[in-house]
């Protein structure tokens, strides 16, 4: 059985007819060619598939596409504003906070949401906020540095 699902992806209205139980992850990657969202474990344990659903972090491997009906989805491809990278993306670049880069999309989206909700995080709250994201290259040190750097950048911007 197919249903028609309508949702907004990175600011663009999308409508497609598909199995309502199909994973949002698969629809993003296979129908919309938004392959920046990664399939890691497929069971919500690694965070590689993180997207925002109505602005809140959500694991797209656990979401049936019908759960996104009428909602707004943001993927890593939708985080930058044109050529202007999000401060967290800039910070990951500056710190070289990736090895293979497979977990990077989820890491960046998680960090951006973390800093939005907690602009001055302690190291403990960064770890707590990012804990659900696995980096198999074990590049956590630089990822921590990147999140700290992004927080400092945003702090500087606030205080002008």
């Amino acid at each position, binding site marked *: 059985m197919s249903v028609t699902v309508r949702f907004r992806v990175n600011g663009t209205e999308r409508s497609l007819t598909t199995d309502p139980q199909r994973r949002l992850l698969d629809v993003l990657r*296979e129908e919309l060619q938004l392959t920046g969202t990664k399939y890691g474990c497929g069971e919500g344990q690694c965070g590689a598939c993180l997207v925002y659903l109505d602005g809140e972090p959500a694991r797209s491997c656990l979401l049936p596409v019908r759960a996104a009906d009428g909602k707004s989805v943001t993927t890593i*491809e939708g985080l930058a504003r044109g050529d202007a990278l999000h401060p967290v993306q800039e910070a990951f670049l500056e710190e070289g906070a990736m090895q293979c880069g*497979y977990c990077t999309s989820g890491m960046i989206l998680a960090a951006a949401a973390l800093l939005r909700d907690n602009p001055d995080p302690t190291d403990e709250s960064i770890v707590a906020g990012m804990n659900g994201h696995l980096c198999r290259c074990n590049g956590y040190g630089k990822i921590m540095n990147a999140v700290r750097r992004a927080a400092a950048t945003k702090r500087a911007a606030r205080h002008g």
Partner: protein
Amino acid sequence: MDEPLTALDRRAFLQALGSGLLITVTAPEAWAQRREGSGMPVSSRLFLNEDGTITALSGKVEEGQGPRAELTQAAAEELRVPVERVRLVMADTDLVPDDGITAGSRTTPRNVPEMRQAAATARELLTALAARQWKVDAATLEVRDGVITSPAGWTMTYAELAKAADEVATLDQPIRPDVALTPVRGWKTLGVSVARPNARDLVTGTHRFPSDVVRPGMLYGKVLRLPAYGATLEQRFSQTPVSGWSSP
């Protein structure tokens, strides 16, 4: 691809990479299909582009440890150009030499020297070409930042040489395993921390990993593990790709 690409197909592919007009043609034989060996032409590893960039080719795969950066640095070091001017193509078997598998920590000890030899040979051949045009001794010429300079102050860029007809034959000469490599104390690019060449693609989600590539008619395989000892498979499944999947 079922058939090895011809030299001209390969050239067309490289042009499609968008790094400027390529004027170097490959050796008549399909080096991309061969195990490396003696006598490989420089053009199996390096192309000069008219915009001054250099395309370098490696059969190795990036698994996260940074060979994309390292091999790019190796080519840039020996060609004496800034690292941003080298575009590395990895693992596309239609284009790259057969460098064997990516395993056993062999890329650094084996392929970095191979890339350096190719780039150093290219630099020597191009310097010799400039020396012939200027009728001077090649040993008196210096290369810096992709510019060949004579003691009298004449200069020629790689980009200008790339437009010279002789350059085609020049880079079809074999890589010299005994070519003098830049000594460590003279390194400007190797041994220096550089950003991953594709870092921006990684943070914007646009880098294509193997699992992001869809080829026409691509099939998927999966290992099925039997739930009990001695169990046998009752049914085989096959599925055609879901509609809407398409080639990138």
